[in-house]
């Protein structure tokens, strides 16, 4: 999705998990608001999902 430019606010994402989960998301610019970035991610990805 990052390569398809569906997430214009995100520059990079990588998985640094070891024992614990640790997904690192880098914003495209320092001016990007973290809350807004996460809202778009929640909307477009499985970071938010509906569990029956």
């Amino acid at each position, binding site marked *: 999705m990052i*390569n398809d430019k569906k997430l214009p606010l995100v520059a990079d994402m990588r998985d640094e998990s070891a024992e614990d989960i640790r997904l690192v998301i880098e914003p495209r610019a320092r001016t990007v608001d973290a809350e807004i970035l996460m809202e778009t991610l929640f909307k477009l990805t499985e970071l938010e999902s509906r*569990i029956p």
Partner: protein
Amino acid sequence: MIDGQGNFGNIDGDNPAAMRYTEARLTEVAQLLIDGIDEDAIDFRPTYDGLENEPLVLPGAFPNLLANGSQGIAVGMATPYRRTMPRSCAMRPLHLIDNPNARSNTLLKYVQGPDFPTGGLIVDSRETIAEAYATGRGSFRVRARWHKEETGRGTYMIVVTENPLAVQKGRLVERLAE
């Protein structure tokens, strides 16, 4: 319930190892379910083919359905039972024993919502959750838990530490990065 040794699968969705590579034993909680079964505490009846015996009722000393949940699939319908924190699922039966006619609202004092093994945050309102518990229908919107980490000179990065249940981490990263 089961204390395993070896590869039992992981959150990326990789499969567990074949059974010849793993070992397992019952935990104390699992042993509570069959506590006293060899002391003639309950009645047995033959199974459907008469080859073995099964308990008529198995009164477990641990509320396993509440704690571990369950899932039933039929034609055209399915019913998942969600897990609950062990402490609060012990309180609920205790309250029901004292007050058999307790309403779901009072029971919600002990159980505020399900407990997902992978963590995450429920973003539904308290009313929506109460409604789901009262009617037995509904679903929960679960979000990943995240925080901001400053990396100096005003730049930052976002770190996700818990993702919603049933979302395989490996697949999530794959889909996001592609």
